[in-house]
């Protein structure tokens, strides 16, 4: 245990020298996860709204599927995306394997079911009078949809935050399709996995703390946002 703390201290002491590499890791983690989350939100929120508002046969089954997909193992997603982007795969020609874009794809697949399922939940928990009021006041489909989004905004932000939290903390998919290439596809989680396997616990814990701080920052931001509601 003392080795762990000594390693952690060494890392703090050498932070100044290592800051460039750490910043690159943190920057890549944030940018890949942000892009993946944005894409997941762009797809997931409208899909979630459509499923949440529409009545169609098999709707309950669709909702169950999306709820189940929220817990899909990251390595399975990594494997699935790997099959897509590998040179023999349908997207092999684009040379995406072991690039940040492949990681974005993996995280998009992970984040979308969360965005969809939590948006469905947000829509279902909306007061039914919202839709009635919108129609009664003469809003068309688009204006009505904008109002619905506005009324569900806090739950939607929670859905997007949950989606981001899921993708930034995943390691399986990023490792498989990103390859953990130093300075190119190394993220915080893949770096932590690598440092741990090397026995460099101090470095791993340091990155873990950075990841936790990011999570805390997100939570504080979200709570402040919720606070403005009351």
């Amino acid at each position, binding site marked *: 245990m003392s080795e762990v703390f000594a390693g952690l201290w060494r890392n703090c002491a050498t932070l100044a020298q290592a800051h460039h590499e750490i910043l690159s890791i943190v920057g890549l983690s944030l940018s890949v996860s942000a892009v993946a989350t944005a894409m997941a939100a762009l797809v997931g929120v409208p899909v979630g709204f459509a499923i949440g508002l529409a009545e169609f046969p098999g709707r309950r089954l669709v909702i169950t599927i999306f709820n189940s997909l929220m817990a899909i193992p990251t390595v399975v997603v990594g494997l699935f995306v790997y099959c897509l982007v590998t040179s023999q795969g349908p997207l092999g020609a684009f040379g995406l394997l072991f690039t940040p874009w492949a990681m974005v794809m993996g995280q998009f697949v992970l984040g979308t079911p969360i965005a969809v399922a939590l948006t469905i939940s947000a829509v279902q928990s909306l007061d039914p009078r919202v839709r009635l009021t919108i129609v009664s006041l003469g809003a068309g489909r688009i*204006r009505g949809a904008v109002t619905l989004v506005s009324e569900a905004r806090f739950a939607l932000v929670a859905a997007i935050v949950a989606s981001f939290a899921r993708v930034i903390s995943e390691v399986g998919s990023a490792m498989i399709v990103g390859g953990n290439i130093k300075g190119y596809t190394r993220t915080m989680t893949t770096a932590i996995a690598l440092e741990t396997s090397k026995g460099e616990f101090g470095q791993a814990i340091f990155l873990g703390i950075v990841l936790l701080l990011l999570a805390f920052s997100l939570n504080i931001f979200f709570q402040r946002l919720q606070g403005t509601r009351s």
Partner: protein
Amino acid sequence: MALRIAELSLVAGRVYAIVGPNGAGKTTLLKLLALLERPSAGRLLFCGEECWERRRRLWQLRRRVTLVEQHPLLFDTTVARNVDYGLRVRGVPRAVRRERVAQCLSLVGLAGFENRRARALSGGEAQRVAVARAAALRPEVMLLDEPTSNVDEPSVAFMEELLRSLNELYGTTVVFATHDLTRAYRVADEVVGLAAGELADLGTENLFAGELKWHGEGCWFDTGKIQVAVLPPAAGVARHMSIAAEEIVLSRAPIVTSARNRFVGRITGLREEKHTVAVSVDVGEVLRVRITKLSFQEMRLAVGSTVHLAFKTSSVRLF
């Protein structure tokens, strides 16, 4: 609640009250009139036009009608954004919207509430904002479901006056649901009774519309055909009066009585009931009088007979 209404016509520019107990179908009827629910059978016409024939047209017709629900939902934003919502979706310019919001909030007694959070308002305030939101659209028809249900007692009179104002200021046809018959007659030009989904006779006999008149030492209710001495109402205004058929004394001979209302008329109709006989007497207005069968036989009444009627001012109920 299923409705079985053979026919119901509402004339533009009037104030209607739909009266009935809980579960009578008042809310369902209002939602049908607001074109928010499609009738499962029958036809719904708006200014002679079939409402549910074409989807595009339905949307246009909906914009001419607005419903204020019993527990209205205000959007999670400011009062001003709520009130101008309908105007925004209609593309009304910002300056006009701002003016209309101020005007409507002032109308409902909430001037200066523009920047308040709508969800932080009390139930009564929220109800008024919902009315202002509907009024801002200047709809041809405004439907209100139990508009005084969330309002505290001192504000009830204000809300009732507001309904009349909406009608008088903008010519809006106002249709409101209530379970309070007194309120219905006090505010509305016409009252529609509803029970178990069907149009129902409210059981109010000798009900007349008219206006109060003050002359001499007394207060009178003028129906346009007869004048009836009444006790001055506490509210100072009344649009309807009713006289219970049992409260009217009927006689073949002139009646010597302290009752201030005395009329002479001819019998126009007789209807035998279980223990009584309902006698219709034309005294300018047709008054329904209920007497026992024994009295009926003793007086040997027949259609066309001349009779004298009398009732006290305290027997006249004002709305």
